[in-house]
């Protein structure tokens, strides 16, 4: 886009295709043992234990949910107290304090259901928004989509990609390692993204 930048395709990584999740985990462990750090796997089902082998951990979504729930609680309480005239004459000198059926302005037990629904709603939004943000969705294209076998990663094959940004990356060595661990096919992906 800008002047003087090299936009020619660069290697993105080496994509190896495995038939079973067990083989994938074995190969991932071998890649870790060989010292590779920048890698990701693409699988049709969640493979438990795979990210532990990869040395990846991400619990941010839990904190996001907690933040969303807390915000929901605050929204519910503030909304109901302010609109019911609890602070009339103090924080809200202009507000009407309607007497409904002789009930107290701060009828806090009656405020619980709406506060509860606000907590749920904002937690749900923060979880789904957080999932999309952390996973980079929506993103219609990704360099790994260029891999010929990629279309099977959502069906019945287990792909491992050792990324070229890894300092130890050398495509021939990676290919040999993957083939040794039973990869059905190995390909080297190219990308012009991010440069």
């Amino acid at each position, binding site marked *: 886009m800008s002047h003087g930048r090299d936009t020619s395709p660069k290697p993105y990584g080496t994509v190896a295709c495995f038939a*079973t*999740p*067990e083989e994938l*985990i*074995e190969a991932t*462990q071998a890649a870790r043992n060989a010292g590779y750090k920048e890698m*990701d*796997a*693409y*699988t*049709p*089902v*969640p*493979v*438990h*234990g795979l*990210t*532990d*082998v990869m040395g*990846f951990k*991400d*619990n941010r*979504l839990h904190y996001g949910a907690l933040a969303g729930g807390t915000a929901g609680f605050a929204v519910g309480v503030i909304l*109901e107290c302010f*609109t*019911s005239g609890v602070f009339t004459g103090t924080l809200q000198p202009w507000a*009407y304090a309607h007497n*409904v*059926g002789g*009930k107290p302005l701060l*009828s806090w037990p*009656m*405020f619980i*259901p*709406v506060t509860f*629904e*606000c907590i*749920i*709603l904002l*937690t*749900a939004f923060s*979880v*789904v928004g*957080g*999932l999309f943000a*952390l*996973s*980079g*969705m*929506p*993103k*219609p*294209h*990704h360099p790994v989509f260029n891999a010929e076998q*990629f*279309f*099977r990663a*959502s*069906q*019945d094959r287990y792909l491992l990609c050792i990324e070229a940004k890894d300092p130890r990356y050398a495509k021939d060595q990676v290919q040999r390692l993957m083939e040794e661990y039973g990869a059905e096919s190995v390909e080297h992906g190219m990308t012009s993204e991010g440069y």
Partner: protein
Amino acid sequence: MSQTHDPESLLTGTHTEATIDTAIADVVLDSSRHKPVKPIRIAGREINIPAPPGLNSPLYLMIGFGFLFTNLMLVAITTLIFTGIGIWGNNQPTGWGFDIVNFVWWIGIGHAGTLISAILLLLRQKWRNSINRFAEAMTIFAVMCAGLYPLLHTGRPWVAYWLFPYPNTLGMWPNFRSPLVWDVFAVSTYMTVSILFWFVGLIPDFATLRDRAKLRATQMVFGVLSMGWKGSAKDWVRYEHASLILAGISTPLVLSVHTIVSFDFAMGIVPGWNVTIFPPYFVAGAVFAGFAMVITLAIPLRKWYGLEDFITMKHFDWMAKIMLATGLIVLYGYVCEVFYAWYSGTPWEVGLLWNRWEIDKAPYSWAFWMLILTNGVIPQLMWFPKLRRNLPVLLAVSTSVSIGMWFERYVIIPIGLTRDYLPSSYGYYTPTFWDFAMFFGTIGFFLFLIGMFIRFLPSINMFEMKELLHQLKHGNGHVHTTHEPVTTAETEAAPNA
């Protein structure tokens, strides 16, 4: 991979990941899966269903039937908006008639979807995997039908935004002490969270459809819907966190929604409404009605598209057991209502009971005894294992429960209102043509949406079925739990496609 022929399994037949995809995704992608209906034989003559070729599969006939009644609903709504809710049978003393009965009925049906997708996920019930997707779809469509009723019941749906707190020049806000305002918040939150949960669950399957589609247009549509899902191991970790948290918050949500719906009545002083058993009794009734509807929809779905391997007899057995259990809770609720009326010693409460019971004197006794028959007696057939596995019987019982749950709301709502504390205002509630048009119209709308869903979206969760396949293979709760390399013998022992 799974080589099981045991009819008691959660997944029967010989399946691999590829065959699961073919069985489920091709309902959407391959139009030859929509087989024409067989001609009906009457008195030795074959009568063909009058439908154009290509549009004569059972599913398309259901969509067409649903579409007809959707139009009836639209006519009913248009007439209502032009004329006012006077065209309904609601009148003093019965301010709440079919509209509220149907609202509660529909929203109750929706609850099984959330129960299956959220509560059974938290309880790690693997059998939910093959029924959760269309149960969730059922939830969303049922809540859509439910939402129409209170919206139109307001009389002026174009100012429905008055229900929400928004700043206005009058300085007027909703009265947050009213259960009706809680209802607005509960139902709209429920709708939103159900859609989010459903969509998040669909994303990996959208990616599968994107990668399997042959037509460019189909690839594009599912490509957009999949949000660029890669199935990356890192994404799966976050995805599973998100699913669990959504399940964790949907569980109290679904309980709160029907509790709040029951507060609409229980917080009132009408005889028969002001009962503390209402929240648990309504929630159990909702699950009861919802499971009945899931069974009603699952039986034709699996037959039309040959999904017998995925929705097995074991599923029906367990669903029927849950239906029986929740039905017994509902029956207990009926007994409690009687006890409450007697124990209260209030003439109005006791009078209400007689007004329900006495066959020769009470104007509504037909509705009450229909309720006891369809909701209390007929579901007891589910005690017998043979009947739980007999699909025609199961279909009949689940239909009976759907009817019975409708009568339950009918018995609670208009009967209480027609005989409250002022004998001078006693009355009788008579629904009009437009009440029925709206009711059958929403049933048609529901069938139409369900049909479109089966046609265009994967009706069984594909990635969870594949997960189940691996779990059955390893006999534990995870695809893989150890970090040690698997022995070659085990890897080879798994025959792969």
